[in-house]
């Protein structure tokens, strides 16, 4: 049976440390937001009907509602379209706040499986997007099976992995970096 709960948000949950963490993770202008709603009227997440979209995410972030933000997967559906950044009258850079929430979430392993898959592909092949059957598709377009990217150069790919190992990926990846 579906769990039924009442629709009340407990404001005592407000976690100032979470706000600080978001600011450190890139939400530098978070507190500038006056909730004018300009971003919400154009955000693809809002238009597509996601429960949590840019305006609400920012408000929840300014209130420090950590659990709500971390548990809700909406931030991972942000298109990164940056229209919000372009139009924000207070220069809050809403998209950076979405990214900050994502960054906080991955630190507690609260992200969709596809995020890890992309990171694994990025590390292994140099390509976060790495769909099967590309050789066949490239042939159809009259191109060599492999593009001249890191995929074709083992030495360079190893170097790239060396580079990635020195980034935050080293701490966060739930797969071995060897």
């Amino acid at each position: 049976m579906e769990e039924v709960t009442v629709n009340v948000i407990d404001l005592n949950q407000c976690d100032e440390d979470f706000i600080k963490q978001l600011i450190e993770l890139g939400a530098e202008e978070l507190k500038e937001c006056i909730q004018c709603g300009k971003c919400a009227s154009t955000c693809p997440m809002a238009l597509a009907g996601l429960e949590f979209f840019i305006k609400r995410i920012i408000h929840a972030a300014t209130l420090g509602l950590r659990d709500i933000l971390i548990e809700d997967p909406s931030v991972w559906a942000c298109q990164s379209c940056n229209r919000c950044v372009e139009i924000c009258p207070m220069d809050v850079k809403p998209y950076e706040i979405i990214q900050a929430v994502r960054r906080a979430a991955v630190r507690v392993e609260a992200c969709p499986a596809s995020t890890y898959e992309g990171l694994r592909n990025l590390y292994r092949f140099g390509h976060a997007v790495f769909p099967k059957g590309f050789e066949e598709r490239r042939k159809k377009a009259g191109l060599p099976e492999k593009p001249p990217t890191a995929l074709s150069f083992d030495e360079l790919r190893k170097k790239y992995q060396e580079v990635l190992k020195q980034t935050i990926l080293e701490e966060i990846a739930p797969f071995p970096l060897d």
Partner: protein
Amino acid sequence: MAKIGVYVCHCGENIAGAVNIEEVVKYSQTLPDVVVVKNYVFMCSDPGQDLIKQDIKDGLVDRVVVAACTPRTHEPIFRDAVEAAGLNRYFLEMANIRDQDSWAHWHDKSGATEKAKRLIKSAVAKVRLAEPLYDRYGDVEKSVMVVGGGVAGMFAALDLANMGLKVYLVERQPSIGGNMIKLDKTFPTMDCSACILTPKMVEVAQHPNIELITYAEVDEVKGYVGNFDIRVRKKARYIDWDKCTGCGVCTQICPARVPNEYNFGMDQRRAAYIEFPQAVPKKAVIDAPNCLYFKSLKKTGKPACEICKKGIPPKGIQGCPADAIKFDDKDEYVTLKVGAVILATGYKVMDKTHFKEYSPHSPDVVTAMEFERILSATGPTEGELKRPSDGTKPKTIAFISCVGSRDERYHSYCSKVCCMYMFKHARILKEKYPDIKLYLFFIDVRTAGKDFEEFYVYTKQLGVKVIRGGRVSAVDVKPNGKLRVRGFDVDLCSPVELEADMVVLATAIEPPEGTEELGRLFAATCGREGFLREVHTKLYPVETAAKGVFIAGCVQGPKDIPESIAQSRAAAAAAAALVIPGKIKFEAIISEVDRDKCSSCGVCVPLCPYNAIRLEEYKGKDKAKIEPALCAGCGVCASACPSRAIVFHGYTTEQILAQIEALTEV
């Protein structure tokens, strides 16, 4: 040896909340020459002042340091107290341990306490070296100049004139009336703007004490409070106003057409024009850059058109019947002597072109000020509601608030009047066209003001749709010419969109062009947003940093008509209080040249913002001399003098060095 008394104020909790008073008192007792240290909850109160007075009268102290708030507001009070007890009023120093300490460092008590000690130490170091100084008195010219002939300037001029003072009212445009005369109706009473303003315009023009100088600008300002010499440039009108009867013949026969500024370019006027039908004075001017006579004179050396003067005889069209056309007119300069000035140059509204997300290229997207003209009977459509693009009557109109206001990219402030005039527009339209569909998009509805909330509720009852909580993000033009508006409705918690025939943007109120330059002419300063700044938001709302220069109306910040008028009448009262007594006190804090030390380099002369310094012969050489009446005590010359020949009384080099030493001593 000085006997210094230090008086530490708690300012209630303002200071005591962040500064450990007891510790500061103990510390102050250790400072050189300090003989008495007292503290009190409100040192500026009568019992507080009595503490100081008593100690002076008892002969305990002969120099006073008050560690309290800002000298800006409180120094005069304590100077009076010191003087009343028999000391020279300049034997007082204030240590500002509130504004510059407890308020700034409220979160750091030990830091604030340490800073308070330093500030007191510095004040003690300065007052030890204080010399007795004496105030001076000068005469005041009993006249006032008001710059700006909008509603604020007009009311200020009328009040002053009714007090019997001579008033010069200077206006940049050919007519007075300002922005208000362009409005259709006014909230919250829905008076017709022109109906209530034109009688006042006539009253101004006819008042025997008011000299109206329109189509003119302030060109140069000399002098100082009580004795300003202001040069005004009366722009060439090319029409002799003594002869012009305002008949309008020239404005009908002139062949040169140009966008009409009065209607924001939505229609055209001629190069010879009367600004608007109810203009005061009702006189025509010729706009030389657009006049064919001047254009061809410039190009070919010969005038091509003199129709306004001579008419077109073959067609039986007569030229100016008053023979007032004067192509050889020149700019004219007049210098006026006044005791005080009121700056009331108003505002302008932002242009729509800044807002690329709102399809500014569409003629059906207009600013609210343009919309006022569309609604007005004297506007481009003679009051008929028409879409600028195709002249059809719009069925659905969207109004967008906070366009350029509450916006870090343009203006962080709230323009204050937009919410209300959006409702006003809605009400005008709904009462005239009950079937029209109106959608008002707000971030939030701000209707604080007498009778404003009632106005909002009434307008809503007319069927106007109010969308709150979402600043509009986009206006897009559809191929059929309609406009899609996208917003967010916080009450529905959903993005919303609307197809409208017209969009009205409530663009921000801005300082008019040239405000900073105008301020500079008078030595009045502008705030961060470019409006002229009052000395103190609460206590001195109409005074500027320049003594004798007052401000009124929107040039000080966005406000509505009632507020503008209230402020202008306050400015009139403040200016009258200054000039009517006929005498003015000048503080003793001024600079003086030790001519034996002066090297005649002349560096100080151009630096002085008040033109108070000139070189004058002394012992066979040109030496700097400061005119005490002109010196405002800014200290620029003293800090620039390479020979240290200038003494800045009240802030001598020795005093400043002693302060720095006290502040920086480890």
